[in-house]
């Protein structure tokens, strides 16, 4: 999350899903230029203009309403463009993609609000809320990163970052220590290694784009004590008989998942073993897995038996994810299914009553918690990989032309972009690598 920034940022401002109208919001100095390129006209300030949104070739992406708020009279205090388009995720993705291609970058979680704060658009009384937002956005982003970076993906990015680091060690070593009688890689070796890093990176990008490595969509985890109806809820939400449902507590031993579509938003729902103290080794492992699943969740559905008192998850079960209390078995308690209060619903998983209200709660929790969507972590990682790829291509070109210092500069750029995913390496760390690899010094 950049803090004080001259970048122009953009994001889909409405909740993910198939709403009627979706909004793409843009803020920053490039806004007028972007508005112009997109609509083909100069927008009068603060007026809703119905117009076409055009792609790079001038073909229509969509028609909708564009509003230009001039700095400082806007939400963020910067030039802001609001594009109201048809709300489907595909249209909004294309529109956002077009805005990004015009020079904006994807906004970080909470970034619009933060700019508003920095530019004095929020008063001090709202500062507390902003702090909470930043904290929460950070947690959200961290969770997003954990999910997106799980396992294989993270391993591949680390491996590429390491290859780039080694290349930098050779290039920077050759620049800073020309008098050493050390054969820093010959140019052909640098070329080969560079080609290998590029090949790995483009393979990773291709797989990442296909979604092979990145989990996508909203991660909803069903948790609670044994035998409160978690598996029935999984079956109800996914619309299939995925889980075995019995009246025996502890039937679900492992996590189980199913994908479904919630108004256009892809959702993966995970059923977990009921949380209780048990001596059964298999069940204990299932419970451990349940805790891990909850740690990676965007939304936790905490299921309780409506006939019992209490509700909130306590102790270990508290993860910081958005939590919805689901009071199940309304048929047995005899109370009316539906919304109870924000973050709490009563349902009957067997009959499906109250599940609509639950769906609304899930959308709320997913869309509005962090101000901006929680899918940005994955998208940002893909952006970073693309930028690293571009930088490595430039390095290869400069290597052919024999501009060592520009190769080094492009490698630094690529390394920084990869570092945005797996952690940056400082100049001093780089020097440390050089000194560890070669005998430097007179």
């Amino acid at each position: 999350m950049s803090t004080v920034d001259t970048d122009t940022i953009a994001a889909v401002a409405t909740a993910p899903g198939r709403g009627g109208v979706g909004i793409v919001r843009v803020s920053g100095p490039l806004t007028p230029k972007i508005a112009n390129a997109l609509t083909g006209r100069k927008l009068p300030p603060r007026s809703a203009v119905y117009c076409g949104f055009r792609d790079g070739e001038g073909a229509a992406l969509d028609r909708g309403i564009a509003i230009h708020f001039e700095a400082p009279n806007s939400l963020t205090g910067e030039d802001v463009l609001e594009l109201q388009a048809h709300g489907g995720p595909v249209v909004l993705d294309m529109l956002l993609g077009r805005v990004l291609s015009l020079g904006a970058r994807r906004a970080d979680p909470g970034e619009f609000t933060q700019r508003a704060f920095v530019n004095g658009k929020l008063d001090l009384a709202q500062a507390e809320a902003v702090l909470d937002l930043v904290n929460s956005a950070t947690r959200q982003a961290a969770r997003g990163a954990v999910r997106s970076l799980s396992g294989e993906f993270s391993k591949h990015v680390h491996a590429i970052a390491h290859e780039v680091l080694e290349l930098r060690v050779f290039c920077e070593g050759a620049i800073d220590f020309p008098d050493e009688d050390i054969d820093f890689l010959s140019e052909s070796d640098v070329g080969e290694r560079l080609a290998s890093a590029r090949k790995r990176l483009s393979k990773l990008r291709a797989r990442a784009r296909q979604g092979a490595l990145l989990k996508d969509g909203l991660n909803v985890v069903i948790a609670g004590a044994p035998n409160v109806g978690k598996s029935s809820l999984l079956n109800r939400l996914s619309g299939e008989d995925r889980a075995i449902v019995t009246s025996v507590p502890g039937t679900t031993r492992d996590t189980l998942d199913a994908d479904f579509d919630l108004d256009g938003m892809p959702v993966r729902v995970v059923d977990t073993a009921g949380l209780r103290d048990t001596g059964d080794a298999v069940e204990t492992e299932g419970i451990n897995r349940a805790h891990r699943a909850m740690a990676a969740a965007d939304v936790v559905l905490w299921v309780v038996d409506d006939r019992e008192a209490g509700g909130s998850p306590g102790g270990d079960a508290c993860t910081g994810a958005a939590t919805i209390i689901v009071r199940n078995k309304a048929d047995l308690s005899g109370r009316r299914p539906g919304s109870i209060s924000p973050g709490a619903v009563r349902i009957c998983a067997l009959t499906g009553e109250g599940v609509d209200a639950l769906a609304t709660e899930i959308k709320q929790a997913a869309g509005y918690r962090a101000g901006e969507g929680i899918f940005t972590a994955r998208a940002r990682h893909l952006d970073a990989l693309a930028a690293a790829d571009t930088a490595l291509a430039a390095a290869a070109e400069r290597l052919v032309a024999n501009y060592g210092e520009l190769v080094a500069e492009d490698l630094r750029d690529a390394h920084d972009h990869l570092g945005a995913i797996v952690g940056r390496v400082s100049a001093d760390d780089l020097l440390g690598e050089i000194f560890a690899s070669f005998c430097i010094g007179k």
Partner: protein
Amino acid sequence: MTLHSETYDVIVIGGGHAGTEAALAAARTGASTLLLTQSIETLGQMSCNPAIGGIGKSHLVREIDALGGAMALATDAAGIQFRTLNASKGPAVRATRAQADRTLYRKAIRHMLEAQENLAIFQQSVVDIEIRKGRVEGVLTAVGLEFSAPAVVLTTGTFLGGRIHIGLSNHAGGRAGDPASNALAERLRALPFAVDRLKTGTPPRIAGDTVDFDRLKPQWGDEPCPVMSFMSDGSEHPRQVPCHIAATNAETHRIIRDGLDRSPMFAGEIEGVGPRYCPSIEDKVVRFADRASHQVFVEPEGLDTNELYPNGISTSLPFEVQFALVRSMEGFERARITRPGYAIEYDFFDPRGLEPSLETKAVSGLYFAGQINGTTGYEEAAAQGLLAGLNAARKVAGSAPWTPGRHEAYLGVLVDDLVTLGTNEPYRMFSSRAEYRLRLRQDNADLRLTPVARELGLVDASRWRRFEAKRATIERAAAALKATRLTPGSDLCARLEARCGETVAKETNLFDFLKRPGVTAADLRAAGAVAADIPAVALEQVEVQAKYDGYIRRQDREIAKLKAQEAVMLPAELDYESIEGLSNELKEKLSLAKPRTLARASRIPGITPAALSLLLIHAKRLTGERGKAVRPEDRAPAREAAPAGERAARRSA
């Protein structure tokens, strides 16, 4: 009871590279300045190897020169072998290195000091710095003389608490036979500065008439001979001589390994941390055991002496081991050592206790520069000295301090690294430390810094006239290239296409054509594309601008971000411990560094963008100004400070 007292604007303690540049800079701006040194004979002494410059370092020397300093001019007057490093690589990473005659170098520096207006030199050890109510008031010397000044620059190098190790014996001492300043060290240790230990070393020196040069590889300087200063043309150089290259061998390494039990480093006698890039020969042999040989540069100490400096075998092994290892090298079988090598441990002050002006945070008017701040190298010391002397004089004159940014000068990188990150080894400049090195070139140091130096009063009329003329030719050359159209099918275009193997598909101009990797300024000249009256130096400068154009523009965008973060001041009273959401490690680092701006905070290792957001918001809450970023003028206690504090208390309750 005072025997004698005098008053100055600025007092500089120490006559090394930092002290002399500090005194000269302060005096150049018009401050009445006193330079106090333990010995006038050693003003401008090169206490380690007799060379100036190198990668990253000659960049600093050129910057000192662009700011009107002495080091480059003295090097041109004393250099006996000049080389351009990285000549085959791009201009941003080219550097100049010179062997210097120690005596000529001292003479040149002393001459400049004596010729400087407003500058008095006095030989006396300083035993105390007078401080009242957190402000410096003057100094006291060994025989009880009192000198008053509202600003004092301390540049005592490795003399503070110096301890010299040769084998397992050690004694107190400063560099190269000078006494250590222990009285002053004791006094300074009592002040609220964080003190730590560092270590560095030198090789044994060797009598040249006992070395068989025919069996060593000579290394001559470059032709035409490079110069260090923008004011020089090469006619300043004395007679040029070669260096020689020798090598250690298996026998040398065996001797070293056998002597390790008597090495103070390996026996744990030395607590200070040595530099990673300048290891002792025993270190190299142990850490890189697979290497059969290490290079040794045999550098002449001067024209009038046959003493040699064997660069590459710095050691603190006992003398008898030094003797054997030297004689084991080819060409050194009869060699006689003139001075033993040694390791020296010394005190330095954690530079995070400094403002970017190099004024100490704890004592107003007291400035630190050079090795005392944990750096190594003449160039790093001289650059800091110039900055500290300038800012001391500016403080006395009531002017705001000046420090260049990371994107403006290597000097800016040096100071920013020191005051933000501190150091745990002697800090040396490398080009890889400068993220904007494509713009921080040695060839354009004057274009970057001389205009501001003129405003700061550091540059005299003759340098300024010369600079203005140079700048005008470069601008004319750039304008001429941009104005020359290159139309496909024209004679000129055909000549250039044939020469460079390029194709011009649509009309362009010479400047844009020059951006292509396959095109050089020499090609333009050879094809008759540029007027004969455009001098080569101007054409080269324009070529560099063209080649780096896209990269520099990308860096400009990064720099714009950096500047925005630099404009956000973090109040000194910001309590990092109480900021929720920061990791404990970051809390500790931030509390120690107390970064002045958000930009500095962003360079603390481990900081995340989210953590920066938190700092920004807390800083803003503390200053409580609505509607604008937190700037220096907002730093007065703010109206909402109290309620914010109450809120914090509530939250923690």
